[in-house]
């Protein structure tokens, strides 16, 4: 669990043989230098830094939650929390044809994956995988959306993380985690939404052990407006 500040040279025992250089590490000639503050992680030939930040920088392949801001020609302009707007072509929706376009209004939210990011122009998103199937992507109706830091989002959908599973034991709900720090969720009633939102936001600085269990416990028992 060693932290690297920008400018540090990364020389961990496992770093010499790994061939995939991940997030936050630049290679300058022979030395590998950290370009962002983060904790070193390595796993079967991959090494990267787990960086804490709140501002999303678009990466290809990330699945993000985007807010529709306007419709221009055959593109929807989306806000994904980055410097430039993002665009999605109406054909990149499942089952969309020339006449049967998805009718998205301003303020709707969609779950899409980043498809192409050239630094200067807008990022391109798509709601279908390469066989034109949605696979869970597309418009998200109803529910509630809120913002959390990027590293907390990654932690929520990490295989070993038990936060969502623990909440799942108490509540009946559905959740979509975007890599750009936005979380959309839907539950039976407004009470549940408020309780789950509170638990997720508070679990950011709670370590994985029993603290988490009683956080979720009293989140469940606490009535919203007693």
């Amino acid at each position, binding site marked *: 669990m060693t932290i690297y500040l920008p400018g540090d040279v990364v020389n961990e025992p496992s770093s010499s043989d790994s061939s995939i250089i991940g997030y936050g590490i630049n290679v300058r000639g022979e030395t590998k230098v950290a370009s962002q503050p983060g904790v070193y992680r390595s796993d079967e030939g*991959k090494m990267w830094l787990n960086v804490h930040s709140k501002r999303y920088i678009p990466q290809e392949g990330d699945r993000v939650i985007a807010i529709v801001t306007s419709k221009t020609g055959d593109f929807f302009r989306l806000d994904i929390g980055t410097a430039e707007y993002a665009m999605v072509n109406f054909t990149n929706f499942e*089952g969309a044809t020339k006449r049967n376009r998805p009718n998205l209004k301003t303020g709707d939210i969609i779950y899409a994956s980043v498809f192409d990011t050239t630094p200067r122009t807008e990022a391109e998103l798509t709601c279908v995988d390469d066989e034109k199937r949605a696979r*869970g992507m597309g418009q998200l109706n109803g529910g509630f959306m809120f913002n959390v830091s990027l590293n907390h989002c990654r932690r929520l959908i*990490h295989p070993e993380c038990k936060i969502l599973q623990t909440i799942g034991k108490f509540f009946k709900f559905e959740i979509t985690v975007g890599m750009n720090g936005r979380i959309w969720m839907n539950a039976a009633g407004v009470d549940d939404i408020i309780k789950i939102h509170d638990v997720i936001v508070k679990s950011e600085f709670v370590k994985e052990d029993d603290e988490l269990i009683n956080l979720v416990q009293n989140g469940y028992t606490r009535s919203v407006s007693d």
Partner: protein
Amino acid sequence: MTSTSSERVVVKELSSSLLDMKFMLSRKKKIEAKKAKSRDAQLEEKIRESEASSSSIAVTAEAKLEYCNDYSKLENLLFGRMSFNGFNKDVELLMEYYEKLRNGELTDDEDEGMDVNDQEMAQTMGGGKLAALSKKAQTKRERAQQQEQNQESSGGRRFNFKDIRKRYSEQNGEGEEPERKFMRPNDD
């Protein structure tokens, strides 16, 4: 604020006011993309120069290094959508699908097989044309009924555009609607 101004090579350029016209939209995007590419090329050269100058030895070792900035691949993250206690059945199907995909039992392109049948194949192959034709053939009242039937039939999820895959596979399951026949395009 020092701004690094690279020398501007005079190139026959369309005036910006012309480019802002509606009909020039696609042309403008092309020009911007070209400008962006040339700028990226410059940036790439600059980085390569600085790297080449800093590492005197031949950069053969670098060839085998590979860059991957995508956290979901690095940390092998789960799929972003989850549903607990059966709140949303579609998502729970997806969770199993992606679980299998993650553990590698199911390669990416091979389908899960269970709901792919010939109608399905016809739909995806025929794709838009057939759907448009069948839509045109229906009378308006039928189509309106189809539209609002879409609204509430998808487990509280209001798909306002006809999602052929989901509708089709569900209708098969519940079977409220008559079996959808292969519509021969009538050549009127």
